[in-house]
């Protein structure tokens, strides 16, 4: 099982990051674990929806850590 673990911040850059999730590293993985620091996990899931819905081949696990902030 090829796994990819990504830690992301759900701020304005999340959508940009989601667009790059089709890079080579992700394509080789058959499991993606996302750990997202966010103020609101439901909003984060809404923003991830298109990515999650379009996936059919890979296992995906999404953790949302609420209240997390980007380090300076």
């Amino acid at each position: 099982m090829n796994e990819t673990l990504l830690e992301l911040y759900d701020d304005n850059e999340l959508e940009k990051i989601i667009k790059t999730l089709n890079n080579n590293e992700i394509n080789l993985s058959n499991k993606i674990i996302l750990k997202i620091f966010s103020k609101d996990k439901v909003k984060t899931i809404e923003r991830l929806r298109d990515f999650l819905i379009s996936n059919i081949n890979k296992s995906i696990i999404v953790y949302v850590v609420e209240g997390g902030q980007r380090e300076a």
Partner: protein
Amino acid sequence: MKLDIVITSDRTMITHHHGKEFLGFMTTGPPFGMPERLWMWICAPKPKVDNIGRPLQAPYGLRKVEAALIDAGFNAAVIDPDHLGRHIKSAKLLMVGHHDYFAMASPSVEWWLLTGREPVNRRSFLRLMRRPEIREAKLRGLKIIAGGPAAWQWLWNTEFLREFGVDTLVDGEAEKVIVELAEKALKGEELPIYVYVGPHEAPSINEIPDIKYASVNGLVEIMRGCPRNCKFCPVTLRPLRFYPLEKIEREFKVNANAGITSCILHSEDVLLYGSRGLEPNPDALVKLHDTAKKYFRTVTWSHVTLAGVKYAQERYGLIAKLTEIVYDEHQRFLGVQVGLETGSMRLAKKIMPSKTAPYPVEMWPQIVEDSLAIMHEHRIVPALTLILGLPEEGDEDLAATAELLDRIKGYRSLIVPMFFVPMGALRDRGWFLREHVKEGHVEIMRRCLWHSLRWAEDIISRFYLKEPQHAPLRLALRAFIAYVRRKGLEIEKWLRENGWDEMVNPSQMSNPFLIAPPVQV
């Protein structure tokens, strides 16, 4: 008995449908022509429960989750929704599953679009989750995990994630992952908000537990996955696995020991059980049916394909052989759901080129007719489903479908047109909504309605609900059919006077359709 894990669903799921699976389709509609209580009594009566509120019969998927948790040593059980209160106070984890939580699957979405009224499956599920006992338990720290084949619908209804405090969504075959999630929940560890089980992590046959308690109407899986790769189908994305007959028989015994007298063999194409590619395995099928008939008075199929029926009969005489095994003084017919999908060869080539295999896709209309003739002759009653609004569908495709419906008028069947819902390999496509309905769609729906009404009356007269105890139910269904017939004539008259465009863009209060989109997408 104190449970740590309670598994449940709402009444439209935890029911035996009076022993008649097809009645379960009524849970996808709003109460039409009668009060909701009567509608629910017809399609989703309460099953018997034991002294702690466990239903005698429960959905097969919930039984698999229950079995996986029990095998892993958890104190878990499927509980009837009316008996939740006594268990939820002390439980640490609530698991819910559903075929169609929010009426976003077909045919729910279509009935909602056409009538403007919320289907009972959604109403019933929301009522369940809004119960004060669940809310109170949530405040005390109860964790909630939602799964099942409709788990994806929560992504489109995130307001309910928030309202009910759902901790985790599980989409896919959950038998392995659910144990790990239960451990985390009970230990108070962090839970993921979303889990999708991809094909690489699908459980092997040895990792799929046997059910411990009876399933609704004796439904038992005989295989998982499907090799036909139709683009609209999520099941074909799963690896193909056949249950060995010994495993199936163990589950037959569970159901038979609980007093269930019927059996539904579940597969996307029952005739592919034990197959080599798309070549049927007659020995395996005969043994399977012989074994099932040892335990049950009636044996039915969940799904077959039209090409599969034609080929199995023409090559091996299998339809004759299998119906000979199952028909006796207890059983005179066999009901099954079958995908007709489209009458257009052009669309068939694009979205389901292997659906017609081993025949070439160019033969599709002939395959449909030949297969229905075989089924009619052998008293197999198919509920055919059509998909309207497939991506790239054009007027010529709708005309081809309407023409095929004319060709199959004489074959006993129900035909249910369904609006396209993005699933399977097409899950990133757009939804089929009100503004997409065209005159060609309306004409197909009209033909399906009259075909199904004609044959529904025949089926009820000759085959269905013949037992004396079902007389009130038969009466209720006849009254419903008469109501639908009257309503159908009213709608046709309205269409002749006002035109089909008025149907999708209503300006008059007297519009009998009252169409509204089901969800904001």
